[in-house]
């Protein structure tokens, strides 16, 4: 314990810098990880031949744990409640459409059912976005 404490005191500045870099990297790794999972739905060779998802998983776990160390001390809100604008609805529509198309590509062999499911998926994405980000 003593050794760890003295190590932290000695490298305080470096550690702070490291944690700051980590807090920037962490969201990026999350998004990459989630995107890779989506890509894997269409092209499963990506994890079999090119990438090791377990490595990314462990990296994300370590990065996330380190991210949580300073986070509890400085809980300030970055985001604030915004009013719903046309521009936002347009973005949500595009996201919903992308989700619909992705689902449709995945299940297109199932005829009419694939259109219904992909439409529902798109609508859920659209409505959810509205509720999550613009709640009164």
């Amino acid at each position: 314990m003593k050794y760890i404490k003295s190590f932290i005191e000695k490298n305080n500045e470096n550690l702070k810098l490291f944690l700051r870099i980590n807090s920037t990297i962490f969201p990026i790794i999350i998004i990459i990880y989630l995107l890779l999972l989506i890509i894997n739905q269409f092209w499963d060779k990506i994890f079999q031949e090119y990438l090791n998802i377990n490595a990314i998983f462990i990296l994300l776990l370590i990065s996330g744990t380190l991210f949580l160390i300073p986070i509890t001390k400085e809980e300030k809100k970055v985001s604030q409640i915004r009013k719903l604008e046309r521009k936002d609805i347009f973005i949500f529509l595009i996201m919903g459409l992308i989700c619909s198309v992705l689902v449709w590509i995945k299940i297109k062999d199932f005829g009419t059912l694939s259109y219904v499911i992909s439409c529902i998926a798109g609508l859920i994405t659209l409505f959810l976005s509205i509720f999550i980000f613009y709640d009164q």
Partner: protein
Amino acid sequence: MIYKSNSKIKRIFEKIKFFTLKNKLEIFLFFFFLLIFVIYSWDTITDSQCPFQFDAHETWIFSKNLIQNKSLIYSDPLSELFEHKIFYHFGGFISNNKLYTIRTYGIIFLTYLGLLLGYKVPFYLISLLGTIGVIFLYLFAKNIFNKKIALISTIIFSLSYPMINWSNQLINNVPAFSLFITGLYFVSNILTNKNNRLSNYILSALFFSLTFWMRYEYLIFILFLIPWIYKKRKSIKLKYFIIAILVFIFLLTPILFLNYHLHKSPFTFGYIEARQIPVKLPDKIVKNETGKNGVLNKMINTFLWLYHRFLLMPIRFDFIILINNLKYYLYDIFPGLIIFSILGYVVIFKGKEKSKLNFAIFSLISSIFWIFKLIPGRLLKPEDIKIESPIPRYFLIVYCFVILISVFFIFYLSKKFTKIMHYLIIILLITITILNTSSLLMGKGYTVFVHNAKKQICKINLILKEFPKNSIVFGDRRFFLHGITERKTLDLSEILMKEEKENCKIATNYIKTLLNLNYPIYIIEKNYLNLTNYIQKNENDLIIEKVISEDYFEIYKIFYREK
């Protein structure tokens, strides 16, 4: 006049607009839950419903028996005529040529109630209970966390593969989970100091006891609530609490009476009786006797079995298989969420919010116990590690906790991330969930395959309805037999001698015995024996007539040649 009516219409529209904007979340939820009910009863709505699984067929038979004979013991007098138990091809265990169920009484009574109202009603009841479970999950999550977390976790959970798949089957896991989460909601009302009225105590006791009627293992999860209750003991009214416990015990006593009536011991359930308890403790085995100490010995045996199964077995596990199982049953079903749930627990344990902390402790104990109890105990064979196997349905409670904690963590990140970044993460997660669910439903998870198979059996049932009421259908449970509910069925796979010819001979003798008793006999092909072919070649006194021919099955009628 026109001006007046126009302004009236305008006012009505404005009122509707105001109402919609004010209650947009509630309106969304209403339509969402409606959609969920439609998805959960998809097989029933599309006329593709029947008790297809082994367990479902057993439940069906016993519920129908309860209607017809007012008994929980099934017996078929014809069965006594034959050496093989060809009429008892569904689950349960046979004792003195009678069949006892190993399903819980709750699912049998639920199916019984449904059947009184109509053929499809039991299936609708399961879907309805699934939907109710989702609604109460939302309310419970709102109590512990907030509206947004409740909304996202409800959507992810309700659209997950295990919920959609098992809400469409006559299986008790979804109703048990739903009743438990409903009870948990009423408990959370008390433990989060939201509502400390007597009604909450009684309703929680009622729903927890109903959960136990559906699946017995949920008693353990109810017991895991003790640390939470103990921590919040100051906010609990002792008088109400005692009343709730009494209600709970009172509602469970019929189970003990039923057990005593069926198995001669209040604590011996059909499932335990069927497995000849306890097999691995030779020094402690107490033989079942019918004498003075019979009941006591049975009770000792039951408790030894429970000790062996729930306390000793989880310790013996293979780590590699455990990891493999976790990958298939947790990671592959919720690929994006597991990482968030681990970090979510870290955040909650670091935080100071008591209700979240208490819930996290409860959920963690329950999940760890269940994962370690269920996975190694059931699945010590690598070939059993499959998503389409029945195992994911046992994990509904764990899935629910994983989703709640991970969604909590995602929202926790919103305090640190920019809006767009946070938004992107949530949308990506929902996209993955929907993509993964649809690919599991249509591929690896076999839901669509089962849907199509059930559709075929429904068609067979429709055809069989036209046959004489005392008809007996010979078939093979590995092909079409389970799910056939319209006429009595007989399973050829129960006849398994070394040689196929010998099996055919026995089956033919059985046919002749039944023909002599004036039962109209039908054979449904395919079966593993190719029985019709054998009869045509070897039995001169029997005539086979093809009654119906479809792409995937054929039905033949058999009768004696007139002399």
